């Protein structure tokens, strides 16, 4: 074959054709939004290409002009510039090569580690998988945080909101969760929306320090990026996660945070002159977040069995859960983790409020052994809260109340956890088991942390028990015996076994039964007599009224 023929063939392969372009002219441009005349053929959410390789997204299709939001440096464009439709919708590069990288929402690298080579593109906006593609959430996603894994369990494919005021450790929870996914086959995607660049850099450095970037992708649209970039960032992050879900893997995507996303969208839609509603947000602000969070799913086994878990973050003002955006997102998600300033300032960190936090599907995805120990934990903690407020007034409390208070104090202490120290499930279960069975009751509150350390070192040496629990996933008789044997060897901790304590309680109830009934009867008598007295009074009053009228 001659060289010329070769070239000829290549040209034929390229299939050169005459092109039909649909063009428009910029009428008006500013603040990242352009109004364009022409573009009669553009469809909604289609990419529009401008000079200098700048792209935009057609959002507003009006009778005689089109509102386009622009990615990148809009200041270079001017009135009269020609733009054209591309026939494409916004797509982001996805794939394994992105792992360990920091990219912008369009997939351009920001970490200076060279270009990202990916062959696959996913649309940023995609309809969420339908009912038949899904199955119920059934596998836990361990955050490694005792307070969350025990009381607010998160399952793979769930959407759990993290909500709280500024600086209460919302990001910290997510980072710990990412760090805990090390060697667990969960790809994490952290989407930073409208954050300070310094904070994003800090997040990257933290993850690198804990060797968590090997399974993490960071999608960043900082506060200095255009509102358009911030608007598409979560969708891009979601698309990257969907790729792994479609591959049958588990992915976790964190949106930090969606309040700023809502602000960015508000800015864009005000500039597009869309009608605004409450708090100047546009009418479709609810759909903005619901279509994003609906894309989190646990796929049915027939469709690969992958999952995409979403952890959106919302920042509240002064703990106000009933503001517009928080209520919206709470109603879309499968539960929320509520962080409270009071707890944070009291040194209870993570500052999770177990009363206001729920997980609406996670319970089904909790390991059996965790369920065994966490059930009474939540109850004990709730009772402690109630008694603690009550005990502030009363001075002499009976023994049962005191022991509950003491137990509660220790539970609170155990649930505290410093940053970047995620804990595996077995260790968590063993610690909770020890607390539930009274091994910590004789330990001073200030020593609980040490006590916990001791248990962990003991467990580290007891590989047999650890493997057994990991295998079985539940605490059976054998495990219980082994646990008792192991914990018995800790000096100074006298186990007050559940049975003896229960017996004591039962005895107390028995002895107080007659006195209780006599008290109630007295109360009844009192109330009856008081009612009679009241009636008599009212009668006499009415009589006196009649008299006075006469």
């Amino acid at each position, binding site marked *: 074959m001659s060289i010329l023929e070769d070239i000829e063939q290549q040209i034929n392969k*390229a299939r050169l054709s*005459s092109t039909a372009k649909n063009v428009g002219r910029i009428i008006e441009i500013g603040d990242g939004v352009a109004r364009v005349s022409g573009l009669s053929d553009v469809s909604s959410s289609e990419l529009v290409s401008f000079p200098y390789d700048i792209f935009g997204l057609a959002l507003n299709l009006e009778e005689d002009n089109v509102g386009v939001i622009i990615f990148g440096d809009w200041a270079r464009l001017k009135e009269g510039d020609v733009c054209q439709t591309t026939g494409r919708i916004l797509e982001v590069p996805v794939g394994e090569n992105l792992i360990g990288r920091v990219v912008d929402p369009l997939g351009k690298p920001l970490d200076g580690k060279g270009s990202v080579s990916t062959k696959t593109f996913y649309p940023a906006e995609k309809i969420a998988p339908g009912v038949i593609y899904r199955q119920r959430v059934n596998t836990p996603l361990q955050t490694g945080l005792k307070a969350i894994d025990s009381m607010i369990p998160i399952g793979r494919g769930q959407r759990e909101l993290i909500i709280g005021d500024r600086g209460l450790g919302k990001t910290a929870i997510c980072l710990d969760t990412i760090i805990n996914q090390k060697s667990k086959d969960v790809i994490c995607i952290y989407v930073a929306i409208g954050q300070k660049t310094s904070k994003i850099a800090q997040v990257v450095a933290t993850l690198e320090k804990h060797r968590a970037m090997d399974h993490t992708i960071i999608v960043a649209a900082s506060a200095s990026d255009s509102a358009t970039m911030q608007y598409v960032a979560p969708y891009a992050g979601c698309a990257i996660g969907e790729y792994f879900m479609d591959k049958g893997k588990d992915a976790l995507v964190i949106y930090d945070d969606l309040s700023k996303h809502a602000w960015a969208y508000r800015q864009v839609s005000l500039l597009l002159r869309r009608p605004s509603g409450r708090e100047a947000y546009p009418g479709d602000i609810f759909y903005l977040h619901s279509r994003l969070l609906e894309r989190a799913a646990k796929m049915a086994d027939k469709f690969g069995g992958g999952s995409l878990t979403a952890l959106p973050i919302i920042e509240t003002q002064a703990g106000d859960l009933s503001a517009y955006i928080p209520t919206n997102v709470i109603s879309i998600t499968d539960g929320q983790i509520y962080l409270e300033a009071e707890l944070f300032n009291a040194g209870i960190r993570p500052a999770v409020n177990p009363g206001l936090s729920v997980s609406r599907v996670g319970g089904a995805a909790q390991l059996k052994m965790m369920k065994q120990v966490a059930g009474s934990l939540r109850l004990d903690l709730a009772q402690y809260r109630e008694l603690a407020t009550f005990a502030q007034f009363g001075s002499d409390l009976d023994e049962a109340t005191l022991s509950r208070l003491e137990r509660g104090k220790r539970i609170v202490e155990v649930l505290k956890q410093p940053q970047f120290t995620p804990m595996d499930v077995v260790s968590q279960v063993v610690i909770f088991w020890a607390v539930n069975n009274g091994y910590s009751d004789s330990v001073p509150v200030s020593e609980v942390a040490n006590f916990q350390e001791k248990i962990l070192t003991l467990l580290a040496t007891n590989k047999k028990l650890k493997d057994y629990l990991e295998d079985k996933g539940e605490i059976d008789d054998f495990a219980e015996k082994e646990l008792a044997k192991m914990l018995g060897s800790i000096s100074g901790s006298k186990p007050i076994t559940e049975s003896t304590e229960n017996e004591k309680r039962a005895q107390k109830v028995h002895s107080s039964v007659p006195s209780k009934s006599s008290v109630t009867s007295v109360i009844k008598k009192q109330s009856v007599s008081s009612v009679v007295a009241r009636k008599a009074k009212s009668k006499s009053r009415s009589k006196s009224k009649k008299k006075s009228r006469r």
Partner: protein
Amino acid sequence: MIAKKKQIQIAKVMLKNSLSGGLVNSKLVSFVLREVISQRPQGLTKILKVYRRLVENKLKKEEILIESAQKVANQKQLEQEFTKNTGVKRINFKINPKIVFGAKITAGDWIYDATLDAKLNQLTKA
């Protein structure tokens, strides 16, 4: 805001009145202009600006621009074909040496590009 909507409305009515048979009629345009100016509505210059843009867009849709590197031989025949198939009013021919080879047709906001330049562009981008 309301005033602006009103202005656009007025301009649209003006455009409607300056068409005859779906095409812009120069006599009607000057008549409409005289009428509006004599009535002196609020924001006259703004209305006229919008009107200008509307007429411009309308005119653009009515004419076709054919660009080529050299003078086209069968200009008359082409003209007939185009008017028959598209129903446009005017067909402008332009000689653009930058094209080198092929032709480029602009109709409203559509551009049909069959120039060598565009083909080379396709090659380099692919």
